Structure formats: C-alpha cells, structure tokens
C-alpha cells in the first residue's frame, strides 16, 4: 500500500489516539464501578512514573533496565531498617537515599563509558540480588497506617506520576537540559564537541531514575510492605510505554507527552483484557501477555515507519 509520506505521517500521528480510544472503550464499556479503576490503576501509575524518567534516558540513547531492582532494593532497605528499630520516616529517607545512590552508580558506570544496556543489566541483577540478601528473602509487613499513602483521596502513586510528568515535561521540553538530551541521543560526539555537558547530563538522568524508584518504593512499602520479587518486570512495562508512545529506542526523537499516551494505552488495554478475562476464558493471563507483546511490536514498527519519512535525508549526492 503506497501511501505518500505526508499522508503516512498524518495517519501515524493519529494512530496512537485511535488506539487510545479503543483501549478506553475496552475498559469503560465493561467496568461496573468506575471508582474501582482507581485502585486497579495504581501499579500502572507506578509504571508510568518510571516510564517518564525512562523516556528522558532513552532520549539520550541510553536505557535503564535496573529500575525495578532499585525499587526492590529501596523497599527492602526500608523494611529491614524499620524491622531493626528505625522510625518509619528515617527508614523512608534511607530508602530514598538508596535509590539515589543506586541510580547514581548506574550513572557513574555510564559516564565511565560502559554501554547502558549491559551496565544496567548487570546492576539489575546486582541490586535485586542485594535486596534478597539483606532481607534474607523474607517479607516484611505490618507497617503502621500512614496518611502519606493517600493524598486528597487518590493513592499517592498518582500524585507521584503527576509530579514526575510535570517536572519532566518542563525539563525536557522547556529547558537547556532537555535540548542537551536530544543532542546526546542524536550524536553524542557532536554534542560533546558542541560543549554540551555530557557526563553531568547522563549522570543526572540515571540518578533521577533512582530517585523516582526510591520514592515509589517508599509509598509501596508503607502500604503493602517490603516483599521480595514483587516488582519484577516493571522495567519492561515502562519501556513498552515509552516505545508505544512513539519515542525511538535509538534516541534523539520523541518526548514526554508521548509516553503518557503510551502509558494510558497499554494500561487500559491490559486492564480491559483483565476485565474481559473474567467473562471470556480466552483472555486470561496468557493471552494478555500475547496481546501486549503483539501490540508493542506492531506499534513500534508503525512508529519507525512513520518516523522514517521525517528524518529521511536526501542521499548524499
């Protein structure tokens, strides 16, 4: 099907919104009690906050596979400290510090020159193993009721998501820092030659990722406790949101609002499928996995194809 470049671009821009409508339809046509969605969506709010910082990292051509492990580690740190007599606030602060240190270590590895993919793959294993080691692989529950887990009626995760979104939107799209990120993703060498502060930018992004992870860990632990292996797989969902939204995995193109779009699409598709699964046998767990996987690939392919025309340079003649 030969579509002209601009028509393709047009359809490309429209497609995510179409998908969004379908996804929303899937959910809202089935939901009995809309308010129940609030609780169902909390894990996705978590994924979203991480996805937003992940977007910035992917824009610079990097990636952070260790976010889930950082959440685990921070959560365990908080749990272990609390169990050993620390007060909840001070344990929470230490959890945040852990997140920043873990993220900062990632940043240091990348600054030293290691490829982010392998570096964060390694720290992913390292941090999650560490979390299990310090807690002896035990669950730590029973945290006192805290007013912090719900703010103004909404679970705090939503507020964290909103805060992260606003901050990232501002930083990436309206500051010098954001311009630097795009340049780094497009051509790191040229960015360096153009006096962009390469090391600082990278380090900050990975540290920020760790910070957000730590923050999410604190809230989760306060509500549900420190539980081993429960956060596994969040990083992949976060990356999926970024990709579905339209940011290119290779960096240099994309943006924060796009990721929000991706988040809403994937979250609603998943929730919609889970609703359907209670009625239609086919859509139980496994089919959901398949659908999400197919969706991810299909949209990623589509995004690449439409982005192709934008960046198409005239062959050097």
């Amino acid at each position, binding site marked *: 099907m030969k579509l002209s470049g601009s028509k393709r671009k047009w359809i490309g821009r429209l497609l995510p919104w179409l998908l969004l409508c379908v996804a929303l339809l899937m959910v809202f046509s089935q939901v009995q009690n809309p308010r129940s969605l609030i609780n169902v969506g909390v894990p996705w709010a978590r994924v979203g906050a991480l996805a937003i910082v992940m977007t910035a990292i992917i824009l610079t051509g990097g990636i952070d596979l260790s976010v889930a492990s950082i959440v685990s580690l921070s959560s365990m740190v908080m749990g272990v400290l609390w169990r050993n007599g620390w007060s909840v606030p001070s344990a929470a602060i230490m959890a945040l510090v852990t997140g920043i240190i873990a993220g900062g270590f990632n940043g240091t*590895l990348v600054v*030293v*020159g*290691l*490829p982010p993919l*392998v*570096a964060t*793959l*390694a*720290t*992913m*294993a*390292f*941090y*999650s*193993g*560490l979390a*299990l*080691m310090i807690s002896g*692989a035990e669950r730590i529950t029973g945290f006192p009721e805290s007013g912090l887990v719900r703010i103004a009626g909404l679970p705090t995760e939503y507020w964290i998501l909103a805060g992260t979104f606003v901050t990232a939107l501002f930083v990436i799209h309206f*500051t*010098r820092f*954001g*311009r*630097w990120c*795009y*340049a780094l993703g*497009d*051509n790191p060498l*040229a*960015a*360096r*030659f*153009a*006096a*962009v*502060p390469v090391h600082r930018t990278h380090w900050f992004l990975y540290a920020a990722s760790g910070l957000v992870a730590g923050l999410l860990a604190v809230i989760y632990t306060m509500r549900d406790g420190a539980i081993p292996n429960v956060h596994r797989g969040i990083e*992949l969902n976060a*990356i999926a949101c970024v*990709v579905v939204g339209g940011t290119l*995995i290779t960096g*240099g193109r994309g943006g924060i609002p796009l990721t929000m779009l991706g988040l809403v699409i994937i979250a609603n598709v998943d929730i919609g499928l889970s609703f359907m699964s209670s009625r239609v046998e086919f859509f139980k767990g*496994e089919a*959901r*996995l*398949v659908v*999400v*996987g197919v969706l*991810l*690939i299909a949209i990623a*392919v589509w995004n*690449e*194809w439409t982005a192709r025309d*934008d*960046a198409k*340079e*005239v*062959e*050097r*003649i």
Partner: protein
Amino acid sequence: MSPSESKLLELLDVSHSFPGVRAIDAVSFDVRRGEVHGLVGENGAGKSTLINIISGVIRPDAGNILLEGQANQLTDPVTARKLGVVTVHQEAEFFPSLSVAENMALTQGLPIKQLGMVDWKSVDHDATRAVAEIDEQIDVRMPAARLSIAHRHMTQVAIAVLQQAKVVILDEPTSALSAAESHWLFQQIERLKAAGTGILYISHRQEEIFSLADRVTVLRDGRRIWTKAKEAIDRDGLISAMVGRQREADDGQPSFRPKPGELPESKAAPRLHVRGLGDARGRVREVDLQASAGEIVGIYGLVGSGRSEFAQTLFGLARKSSGTVEIDGRKCDIRRPRDAVRAGLAYLPEDRLRQGLCRGLSLRANAVLSSLARWSTGPVASARKEKNATAELLERLSVRHRSIGQPIGQLSGGNQQKVVLGRCLLTEPKVLLLDEPTRGVDVGAKAEIHRLLRRLVNRGQAVVMISSELPEVMENSDRVVVFRDGTVAGQFDPRQATPDEIATAALPNETSSIAQSASQSQARANGATARRRSNWLRTVREITGIFLIPSPCPLPRGARVQRTVISRTILSGELGLLVIVIGLMIWLGLTTDGFFEPGSLMKLAANASLGVILGLAAATVIIAGGIDISVGSLLALAAVCAGMVLKSPFSTALTIPLAILVACGVGCAGGLLNGALSLAGRVHPIVVTLGTMSIYRGIVVALRGQHDINDLPQAFTWLAVHPPSGFRGSILFAALVAGAAYFWLAHMRSGRHLYALGSSPTAARLVGISRVKLTLIAFAVGGLMIGVAAIVELARSGSMQSRLGTGWELQAIAIAVIGGVRITGGQGSVLGVVLGAFLMQLVQTALVRWEIQGDQVDVVVGGMILVAILLNHSWRRDE
C-alpha cells in the same frame, strides 16, 4: 587500438533518482586503458552517486554500463570487484574489530578452500604482499582499528595494484594523505597506467587534476557538462563549468585583505596567547601561538602533525599537560569545552559528519546548541528567541534551506558546514578555532566562507584556521604557522614566503628522522629481549591457538615493551578467562572434598552445559550486532512443544527424534521471527524481543495449562543423564553445539560475515554482505541452539514448569559478555563463551558453599558482568 577497443568502462545515458531528487541525469562518458580520467564537480553534482553505481553498490534506474564492451556486469560490489573494478572510497569504511588481513580479504570476498572453509593462509599471504608494497611495518594480524586513515587508503590502493585491477576509482584519495604518502600514491598511479589500468580520479584539488589527468569530465547538477583533454582546459573554464556561472572576480584572490605595507600596527595585546601548550598524550608539545584581533592565523601541516590535537586540547576536548592560555590578556583554565566557550573560544570540528552534525535534529536545534544560555531566561529556554536567532543566522550566512525545522541531514555539505559554523558564531566568541572549515565544501560555499572569515576578523575577532590545502592557507591567512611533529616548526608571511618554503617546513626533517630511527632501533632491541622471554608464552598461545578464532589481538610483532606483552596476553580474552577458571577450580578442589573426582567433575560439566548452549545462542546474535532477550521464553516454548510430542501416545522410538526435531524447529522459527520482525519493521531487536518474550511466554502458559508435561519417558531423560553408567549426555550436546559453532564462526565464510556485519554494518554493505540474510541466519542459528537447550533441560528435569527459562535471558547474555563477546557486535569467541559458562557454574557452586542461594546469586552474576565489561572497556581504551 581503435577508440572503442581501448574503452574499459563506458557509461551510456545512466540516470538515477532518489525520492524527490534526480541525482544523475543521462550521464555518458568513458574511461580508457591507461588513462587517468579526472571527475570534478561541486558537492551535490552527483559524483558520489556515480561512484556508487560504478562500484556496484547501486543499480541505476536507467542506462547501461559497459565493462570492456559488455553490459550488466556490475551487479553488486563483490562482483564488480571480481571483474576488476576497484573502488577506494573517500570514507574508508572498514571493520574495526577484524584483522587488517581479513579486512583486505573481505573486499574481494574471503577465499575458500575445501568444505567451504576460509583459506586463512592465502588471506595472510595476500595481505602481507600488499602491505609490503607500502613499505611499512604494518602487522596484518592486528585489529584494523589500529590502522591510521592514511594507511587504510594506502592498503586498498596496494591491493588494487597487486590484483591488476582493470578500473580503479579513487575518491578524494589525497584528503587523508601526507605529502610523502601522496607521492607514493602518484607512483602507484603511474604503475597502474603503465599496466593499462583505467583510473577514475575524483578530487576537489585542482592542482592534482591538472597534473595527473589525461582527460577531465565535469559534472554539475547530475549532468555531464563536458569531457575534454587536459590540454584543452583552462582553470576558469573549468570552474565556471562546475559552478555554472562566471567565476567571481575575487575567487581565489585574497579578499579584503590588506596589501603589504598597509598592515595596521597591532597595538593591542593578542586576543589569544598560548604558551608551551602540551597534551597528556604527547601528540602536542610546547606550542606557542598568538592570534590578534583582525588577523587570520593559518595553521598548516601534514596529517599527524598535531594540528587538530592542538585545537582540541586548547578547546578542552583533550587533556592539557602543560602550558598556559590567555584570552584577552586573562589567564584561562580550560578543562572542558564548557570552560572554553565561557572563556570566549569556539571550535569548528574537522569531521563534520561525525563530530559536528546532529543529523536528525533541526537546523534550529543544531544552530543554538552551544549558545542555549543566551536564548533562555533562567532555566527556561525560549523557542521564540531560538527561532529568531536561527533565522537571522541562516540569513546572514546565506544558507540554502527549506525551513528552520527541517533536519540538518537534508542540507548539502556546504550549507551544513555553514550551520555548524553558525553554531560557533552564536556563542559570540573572541577567538574562533576552525579545523578544515572548507573540507568537503563546494567551490561556491568555500568562497563564501572565506569572505565571511575576513569580515569577522575585520570586526575584531581573531581566527585560527587549520587547513591541509596550502593554497587556501596562503591565500586567506595573514600569518602561516607550520606544525610538524606536534609542535610549531616555523612561521611565515604568506605574502612573501613561497609555497615551497612552507611545504618544506612541514616535512619531517633530517634531525627529527634521525632521532626517530634511533628510538626505533632502541625499541627493536627491547623487542628482541622481550621476544626471547616471551617465547614460552608464544608456544602456549600457538597451542591454544588451535582452539582460538584467529583473534585480532595476537602477540604484537617486534618492538613492544615487555610489560605490555605479558599483561596483554595474560589479561587478554580467552587466556585470562582460562587462568581464572583454572584458579577457581583449584581453589574449590582444595576446599571441597571430592571435587576432582570424575563423577563430580562430570556433574559440573553437565550443569554448565545449558549455560554453554544458551551462551552461544546469545553470543551468535550479539556478534552479528543484535540482541535477544526472549531467550528464556523461547526456551520454554520449544520445551513445551517437545514435551507435548513426548507425551503423545506413540512409541518412544518415534517421539524422541520427533521431539528433538520439533524443539529445534520451534527454536529456529522463534529466532527467525525475532530477526524478521526486527528487519522488516526496522525496530531495534531489543524492542522486538521484548515483545516476543511476552508472546512466547503467553503461548507457553496457554499450552502448559492444557497439557500435562510431567514424567517424561525414561528413554528421553537418559539423553541427559544415564544413571546406570553415570554418563551425562548433556555434555555431549553442549560439546556438539560448541564444536559446530566454532567451526562455523571461525572457519566458514558466513560465520566470518557475521563478525563483519557486527563490526561495521556500513562497511558490510559496501563489500556486498547481505545484512538481511545474515541477520536472519544469526537469529535462526541462535534459535536452533535454544531448541537444543530445550531438549537438554527437558531431559534433565524430566518435566516442565511454566516458569522454565525465566532468568535465562540475563544469564545467557552474562555468559556471553563474560566470555568476551562485545555487546556492540563484531567480537567474541566460542572458547570464551564456553569458559564463561564454566566460570558461571563454578561461581554458583562456590556460592552454594557459602549458602547463598536462589536469586541472591544474582548479586554475583551482576558483579561478574560489571567486572567483565569494565575490564574489556579499559583494555580497549589502551589501544
């Protein structure tokens, strides 16, 4: 010989278009035996496209190309090469992680002997012969990344001479060569002419064209304007034909430059004053330089004389080891580019493509990149201010563009250069450092840039211009500084000195060459002692060499410091791993009873088998430049399908072979799907395999839920473990896979092509390696191995859980990385992966002793990966 018989290469009405652009329009010309045919034209005239067509990279839309009278022969680069059409591209694409010899062989296609194995002897032999022509001490077994650009070009020319090419195409051959090396090139051209080779010589340098060419063809806007014999051409006619307009009065004349005697007294202190500058790497030493307001200082020197290194050290891109820098009289401590910009320096990089452009970003983004602080209030950047500034800049520099928002990659070379120059200007610098500002820029834009520079200095800025074109330096500078061997060799007044004087000053002279040879002979003496002491190492390496892929990092020949030799071999790749593995085994043997009993060793090997196979699967894909994080899910999928076959009510004599077949088939299919999706969809494999990981796992859960896969037939489980005899079949499977993988990757052409593809996809395209075919092969083979692993695992455990395989994605990649496979592709060995798997298994055994179990082991796995890549990274830095 009649004119038609002497025509080696003939183009008849060749046309080619790219979307929206007609690159070549009905071009016809020919190249005769023994002639040098010059091809000139501005950038954008179509020369690159023409070169690509003749060398077989592109098939033209229309027209015919006759090689010795026969059409339709130049179908692809490898065929073109075999038929005797050799192209030496300007951007010498090569495979950095492969050896020099293999690089050379790949351009012709790797020679094969019986069984389809690569004939390494002949590869080495041909390479050594070619290198001997250059008269240099190049080790053909070293990784090509260590070869300088000049040498890369020269080796290609040497090959062309040796192989008695019919037609040789030289694209800007002297752009990276020193005067001496250019001289060598011209000698080779004479040899080729005498042998009857036709040479197509493309160059911007008119002096070369005039001195070398027998005939000249001019291209403009994709059309051939004319072809004339040298005698019939005059300079102005040539340029006006290229540019399409009458040469402007002041082209080639120094413009706005004060005549001798009109120089204003320079009263003010110099804007830039550099004293004794040296860099940490020793490529720049004791450089003194001044530049005043109103003057253009031209830096001239040969390639390697340290000019760019000087500018980059000054700008903070390289570490300074000595010297002071003053700008407008104030001392500046410049450690990184940011400091330099703040101090008032701006630097225009030499390599526009790699160091200057952010190709996918807009003109606006590129233009304001270095001056963002100016267009923002506090932390907030203002798009409006940026757009205004950019529009004004583009206007001022006469940049031909469609819109501010268009990607800079769409502009022509000259216009791109103007934008990058504009980026420097927007920082309002006091001193401009320009590195080859008009390289790869057409004549028209070149003149505009020169005029612009003169305007800038007339308004008070100081300009330091580095150039390797002597005429440009002499015509545009107020003072010429000559660089030689990393320091200043002299200063000249271009109005009074002759070109000869300046060129001679740039050549390495007798004293320096005597000193050089003295240090060389000392080094050779050191090398002899080193060689005697390292003979035993060499023997060990030769023995293990049977198992090693022709590693591109052999013992360095000749003069190297002894310490480097030993540390290189001990720590390098496979040997280092072997040492660690053996060390760990000894330790475990000493601390555990019965460790060295055959039974327990067999158990160890059997446990490592899965890691070996999956590590090799991951390695195969990574070496080709991809990555696969669906390994675990695919493993489970293959296992479930095999399990279903095994549980079917047929005799085991049928089901077992069938199960094996099914597992391999499913694995292969899954791998192919990954590869195909990533190719067809042009999506990075990590995203594709992220998706398929989910898909495969979903299918596994669905199938597993419906079928019971427990208590598999004993005959099957005996494949892995045969309790009566204690024999562990898993080891056999692993050995089989490893052996086949080694044979393929080290000695078969397609395996070597895998390395080439991973090393440099662009170079691979140029030598005719099919990215599509090889990527699919890599993924398919990887998937096949995963299928085998599924059988092994299924047989070992006798049943199957849905969880099977989770976590193996990480482990497989970990084993590969620890085994020396580079994540970016192009490097890795089977032995390394096998050792990596053993190491992983040994570590896990050790950890069990320390009572660290389960997922806590991940701490160590993660740590091991980090150590491995840190080590890998630091050696590569040393290279």
